[in-house]
């Protein structure tokens, strides 16, 4: 299945942040979103996974096919690593956490409360959650934050595996992941023109 986005507009509050966003990603490929701070990468991803209103444009894939990983990991600090994983496995109906545990070598941390993890360990836990969703389209927002070099490699491997099984990944990131099947999309090109703001209160007649 391919992902096709055409002429999407994205808002944050009342501001139109992006407009005319159009791109396509083939099954088995990744798309890297590039753009300076504040250019709208997070906004776009939230829009794609259905966390915000979609004022205009079309996305051909249902949000049921997408898994989202954000700045905030959604990890419960009072639960152990294992309980955190099991919870999400149950929510997504894929009751097997072994693959996730293995990929990021979480084995020694399983019994630890998430509270007592370091920043990078938390992030590993958050990313391994993706493997539990069983969904084909991954939307990732700066996934490698806090990861050390070793774990960035492991993460890139995870992406490659996912792509190899026909999955899709859209990744907003400032670092180079060294992915083979990846295209790059520069997001600043979609900055809306001045006159596109489309706010009903901006229409004429105000003199």
């Amino acid at each position: 299945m391919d992902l096709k986005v055409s002429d999407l507009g994205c808002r944050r509050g009342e501001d139109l942040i992006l407009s005319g966003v159009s791109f396509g990603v083939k099954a088995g490929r990744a798309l890297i979103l590039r753009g300076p701070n504040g250019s709208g990468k997070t906004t776009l991803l939230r829009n794609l996974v259905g966390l915000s209103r979609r004022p205009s444009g079309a996305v051909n894939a249902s949000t049921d096919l997408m898994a989202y990983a954000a700045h905030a990991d959604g990890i419960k600090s009072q639960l152990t690593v294992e309980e955190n994983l099991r919870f999400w496995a149950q929510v997504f109906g894929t009751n097997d956490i072994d693959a996730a545990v293995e990929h990021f070598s979480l084995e020694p941390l399983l019994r630890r409360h998430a509270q007592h993890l370091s920043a990078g360990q938390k992030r590993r836990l958050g990313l391994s959650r993706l493997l539990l969703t069983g969904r084909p389209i991954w939307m990732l927002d700066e996934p490698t934050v806090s990861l050390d070099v070793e774990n960035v490699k492991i993460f890139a491997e995870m992406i490659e595996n996912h792509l190899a099984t026909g999955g899709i990944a859209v990744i907003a990131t400032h670092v180079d992941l060294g992915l083979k099947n990846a295209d790059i999309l520069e997001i600043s090109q979609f900055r809306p023109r001045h006159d596109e703001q489309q706010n009903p209160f901006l229409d004429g007649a105000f003199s």
Partner: protein
Amino acid sequence: MRALLTRDLALALRSGGGFGLSLAFFLIVTMFVPFGVGPSSATLSLIAPGILWIGALLACLLSLDRIFQLDYEDGTLDLLVTSPLPMEGVVAMKALAHWLTTGLPLTLAAPLFGFLLNLPSGGYLWIFLSLLVGTPALSFLGAFGAAITVGLKRGGLLLSLLVLPLYIPTLIFGTQTVVLAAKGLDNQTAFMMLAALSLLTFALIPFAAAFAVRVNLR
């Protein structure tokens, strides 16, 4: 869905928010009333049903903002919205978890506290029954309030302000059930109204609250 319920219960129990605490809070509020209004047992027995209900309601209120707030802050709510669970179900489960950790223990303990306040003897059964039927409505209405205020920092007082007016009918029918029973009068109507109110809440609130959560996230 079951996973969500067990997770919420586990979280409540793990971090100093378990069954015991709401009870302890209830105990203290009941204790404060005599400090405020004086130790005379005639006065106390007069106001006992009302105080017990208000105490239960406040104990409920104090734990409301935990229903969604923490999940919002650590990003869990974002992930739940994009998960296969229907948001209405999520809301219902969270309200249920809230009831199990606050409303239920309060209901079970209320007759005992009634004792401390000299509740007239006809009231014991009915304080139990009215709380049993009424507190779930408090949890559901509270979940609605929590859903509306989830995006706000320091939403606690605002939440109370939104929710308390919604609690008024429950409070009135709840206390009337007990007051009438304590006086030996017929309390059928009040009790039936209370039950009807709860059912109505279960049916409507999950949809309203789910809508509010989605609006707050975008």
